[in-house]
């Protein structure tokens, strides 16, 4: 009697184990498929960048591999246009914009979260309503403003419109508000000024969120295209995103896609490195900002 139940049990566990295994196999299959879909564009980019210009143009149907890889495209990318200058511009643009924006965002989030001033709620509601205005509209008014201020073709003209972000202010304010009021009171009893409290308590506690915002902003700056394209027409102020377009147009009669891809690879590397270093932090920050309490 007991033997039978024992056998039944082992059969049961075997069954469970088998379905578990099948589930896992399906899961892995799907994940593999997914990662292929995600990785393929990267592969294609790198592949194209090492095909020679002539080989690329002679392939009627693009091949999935190449037998004669070349690095010439990389040299072309840097020589056909002043790509290193664009790199420098992009770097300046990204660093300065992100730095200024962090200061603006942290201070305004602090004000909205911690300070009491007249009309705070109304101002914040107005701020939030700004998020509903489509970006294209903002770009047009910004363009008019910056042109009128005679700031076309200058770093300041590039940077100024993106030194604030309503969404990030909102995001960080939510985070700041989760810091218990008692910490503030305790600090006040010890004679800590508001600014010192912000520096020594609020910012360190919210560091994951702040890092996340900074990284997202860096990515946004690095990839920005429309605004720099509109506001600059001199090569000295081009960013890499504009530069890529230029390389494409620089081919011998036809578009020089391999050189462009080489440039794209070079441009993507810093972002990929950044992401690999910080991806844990980004996830942490996003999930923290989302859940309250």
């Amino acid at each position, binding site marked *: 009697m007991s033997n039978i139940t024992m056998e039944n049990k082992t059969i049961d566990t075997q069954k469970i184990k088998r379905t578990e295994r099948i589930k896992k196999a399906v899961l892995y299959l799907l994940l593999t498929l997914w990662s292929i879909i995600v990785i393929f564009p990267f592969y294609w980019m790198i592949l194209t960048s090492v095909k020679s210009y002539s080989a690329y143009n002679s392939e009627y149907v693009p091949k999935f591999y190449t037998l004669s890889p070349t690095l010439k495209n990389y040299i072309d990318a840097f020589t056909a246009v002043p790509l290193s200058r664009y790199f420098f511009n992009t770097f300046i643009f990204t660093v300065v914009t992100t730095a200024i924006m962090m200061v603006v965002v942290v201070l305004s989030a602090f004000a909205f979260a911690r300070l009491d001033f007249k009309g705070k709620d109304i101002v914040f509601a107005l701020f939030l309503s700004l998020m509903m205005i489509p970006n294209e509209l903002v770009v047009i008014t910004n363009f008019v403003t910056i042109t009128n201020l005679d700031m076309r073709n200058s770093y300041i003209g590039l940077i100024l419109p993106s030194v604030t972000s309503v969404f990030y202010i909102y995001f960080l304010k939510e985070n700041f508000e989760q810091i218990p009021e*008692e910490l503030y009171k*305790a600090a006040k009893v010890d*004679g800590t000024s508001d600014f010192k409290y912000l520096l020594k308590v609020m910012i360190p506690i919210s560091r994951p969120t702040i890092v996340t915002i900074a990284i997202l902003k860096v990515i946004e700056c690095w990839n920005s295209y429309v605004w720099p394209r509109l506001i600059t027409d001199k090569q000295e102020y081009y960013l890499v995103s504009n530069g890529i377009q230029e390389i494409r147009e620089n081919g011998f009669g036809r578009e020089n896609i391999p050189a462009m891809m080489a440039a794209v690879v070079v441009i993507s590397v810093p972002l990929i490195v950044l992401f690999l270093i910080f991806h844990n932090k980004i996830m942490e920050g996003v999930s923290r900002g989302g859940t309250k309490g």
Partner: protein
Amino acid sequence: MKIRLEHLTKRFPNRNKKIKTEVVAVNDFDIEIPDGKLIGLLGPSGCGKSTALNLICGLEAPSEGRIYFGDEDVTDIPPEKRGVGLVFQNYALYPHLTVRENIIFPLQNLKGDKKLTKDEMNRKAEEAARLVQIENLMDRRPGEMSGGQQQRVAIARALVKMPNVLLLDEPLSNLDARLRLQTREELSRIQKETGITTIFVTHDQEEAMSISDMIVVMKDGVINQTGEPQKVYDDPVNLFVAKFLGTPPINVFEGEVRDNKLYVGENDILDIKGADDKKVYVGIRPEGFVLNPAGRLKCKFVRVEVMGRDTSVIATNEAFLGESIRAIIPTEEKKEPADGVVCFDVKPFKVLIFDRETEERIYFEA
């Protein structure tokens, strides 16, 4: 340091902006707190205990009245210059700092000739840590400690500046029953060791009674009574204080004084003198009952309950206000009456009577 509060009042605008009336959180506080004592500030939730504490430490400005530390008027002095240490219900430790950094934090704001070097700060932090016995936890973060340990860190942080006054806002309410018992003993020890005038907020009357040198019972922003715990317990000024102190709580009956006798329902339970004839509330402490088959107070027997060291008789009576009467009796007298009626005599000094309208105490001679 002696603390004196003079007509201290705090009004808040109503949180519901449509209602214009103000909330009076603290109403005309007028007390003197002797130097070096542990004071329990006691009252139900929302009666203004935290507000009173915030006024004393300077986080809130009073609407009226003055605050004196010793002979100095500190009403308009900012909190950091008052020399107060504050401990919160949820400890309010900085989660990103280690215990050591948490304790040092208050010292880093000292300016001018009070400024300390790193070594001095460390030494002071260690001194404070020793006092609350957490020297071996100095490099942990708050998240890696138990509630009791965090609580001690909070106390160490409040003590490190050697404040004149230590204020504790429900510091034990996050601890479990046993740890609470242990920590409150510890608190009492630390207070005695340092001799710092300490005000301790709680809504747990037992906690306040057990360690305070003096308790202040408040209700709706008004101080009802101050005094030594036992004295306030034995001699409350009104029904609220009588009900608020004591576990199990006092038993309250509807009663009447008639012809120098105190009646509960139809039973005249006590001969009294010096009280006018009128309808009253009669409060009898659970330990004020004496089982006696010929006793003058007749109640309907419900059951006997044994809880740890206490044995109580649960009974009901028509005139009783509430669910059931609880009378604590010596364990050896435990037996159930045959006819379902249990009779008590009452100890005169455990019987308190109160006016029906004002709920003020009416004094009498037994």
